């Protein structure tokens, strides 16, 4: 792997460079990812889409630093990523709020850690409240996770991630567990926040509409094992986007059907190569947990 010196740092803000990922299993090593390579610009919103088990979460966890790639690596601003850190904040699928802390305290834990030296007590308080306000959770700041709804918990999770002022925001199916109406609401909120902060985001999703609505680029992944990038689709719809207006938009519908075609025609979930079928199936089962 060679590191090329770039003239424009904006172009190569985050480089996911030829990563392979192999997991050890009882029946030998299982290659989940093979040669995944994406260059992400600053302020870009990327969606990773693919069937379940294709290794989307693995990619995200490698960028987060929770997993280490077997080959290749991740460069953020030309620095190699090898451990988790607050500059790559993660919004977890199941919110992962600490259940014994209130919304405010959950965000506070992050702020206290990230800005321990740079902010005064009053500044921290203001910053925590600002982030909770951003996700419209200022009315329930002092409630604990078990006292608020699923959508609200996810909002607090996003506020916690935003409060770290990350270079990259990583979202692992952030709205996957929510009902359709709440999800639409959350997507609108996210667009609103994105308009204001213009974060660099990698989001995993199962939802085709969500991907087209929110992203600048959609990265479509092939099925595992040895999953890799199938196609990358540029979404050049103008911002701000409105879901109602887009429903009639021919470009939106073209993009949408392109993703659908990829998922349900080119990468239809079928078992591969009959001769090694049983073996591969076993491996897939073994790693579906990971």
């Amino acid at each position: 792997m060679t590191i090329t010196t770039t003239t424009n740092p904006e172009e190569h803000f985050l480089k996911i460079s030829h990563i392979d990922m192999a997991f050890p299993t009882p029946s030998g090593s299982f290659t989940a990812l093979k040669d995944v390579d994406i260059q992400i610009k600053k302020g870009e919103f990327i969606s990773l889409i693919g069937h379940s088990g294709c290794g989307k979460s693995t990619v995200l966890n490698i960028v987060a630093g929770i997993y280490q790639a077997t080959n290749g690596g991740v460069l953020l601003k030309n620095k190699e990523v090898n451990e988790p850190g607050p500059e790559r904040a993660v919004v977890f699928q199941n919110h992962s709020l600490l259940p014994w802390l209130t919304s405010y305290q959950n965000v506070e834990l992050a702020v206290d850690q990230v800005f321990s030296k740079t902010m005064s007590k009053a500044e921290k308080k203001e910053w925590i409240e600002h982030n909770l306000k951003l996700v419209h959770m200022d009315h329930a700041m002092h409630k604990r996770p078990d006292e608020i709804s699923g959508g609200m918990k996810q909002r607090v999770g996003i506020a916690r991630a935003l409060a770290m002022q990350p270079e990259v925001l990583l979202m692992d199916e952030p709205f996957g567990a929510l009902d359709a109406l709440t999800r639409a609401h959350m997507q609108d909120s996210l667009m609103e926040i994105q308009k204001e902060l213009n974060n660099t985001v990698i989001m995993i999703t199962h939802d085709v509409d969500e991907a087209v609505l929110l992203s600048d680029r959609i990265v479509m992944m092939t099925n595992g094992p040895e999953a890799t990038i199938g196609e990358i689709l540029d979404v050049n719809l103008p911002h701000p986007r409105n879901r109602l207006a887009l429903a009639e938009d021919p470009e939106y519908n073209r993009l949408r059907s392109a993703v659908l075609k990829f998922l349900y025609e080119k990468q239809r979930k079928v078992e591969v190569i009959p001769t090694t079928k049983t073996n591969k199936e076993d491996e897939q089962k073994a790693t579906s947990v990971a």
Partner: protein
Amino acid sequence: MSLTTATINRLTVNEKMIKILKDVFSKVTNTLILPIIGIAIFVALWSITAKSIHTSLGEFPGPNVVVKQFSVLYDEHIAERQKAVAFYVRQDIRNAKKLEKNPDYVVKIRAYTGKETFVDQIFTSLITVTSGFLVAAFIAIPLGIWMGLSAKLNSALNPIVQIFKPVSPLAWLPLVTMIVSALYVSDDPLVSKSFITSLITVSLCSLWPMVINTSIGVSSINSDLLNVSKVLRLPTLTHIRKIVLPASIPMIFTGMRLSFSVAWMVLIAAEMLAQNPGLGKFVWDEFQNGSSDSLARIMAAVLVIGFIGFLLDRIMLMLQQKVSWDKSSASV
């Protein structure tokens, strides 16, 4: 039309009333009436069977004899206290007289050395069990947290824990006694050797449930929460304080409750053999005494031991409910 709805409403109101009454009734039955019936049947069986058991110390005591012994034990306690007060009054008078005769006389105050009453022995036992338990907790909880955090340490220590866990206090006691008499040598001991021996035996036996439960609690923390901690790069101490401890509090308390009941059981045996002046010694002394009241007094002690054990568990439960963020985990 309006008439029918009115009847329907009235019906539902009546039904609601009946339902509420039923609920209250079943609650009262479950919490009060059924336990009373259970106890009544037990007492009846006890008094019937007691009459047919004849020991060398006479008939086995029935409930009425034991109840009588309770008041005897209490009277003895009061009498002993009065003796103590009288002793100090006499001593004061004697000292005052001596001072009158000889102003240079240095006043000596001697402590009263009467025998411990049943009530005193209850308190001694409570102090011993609490000290032993606290010593065990101070070792077991940090050790359990460390084992939960480090899989390597867990693999290294797990066999030792598993081997020592089922060891009876009676097996430890001779060893502990010899070690204490060898190492705890002092002309003016702050606490008696028998107290130290009982305390260490209690600690040794109540250590393990806490170690095991704490380490399981810590090692089974949701990996998402651990990832949050990793992303934030929390320093180890903050990680333990903010994530590990609150997350494993329910399991730590389960271990503490198990340990406390083990400690209380072990204590009675330890006191019997170490002759620490507590309930165990009371039972042993009465057994050696062999008077016609002995069995009734031992039976009274058995009931008190059981009741205190129950109270201690309730206190731990209340503590757990106070400390834990997850109120549902603190159940009976």
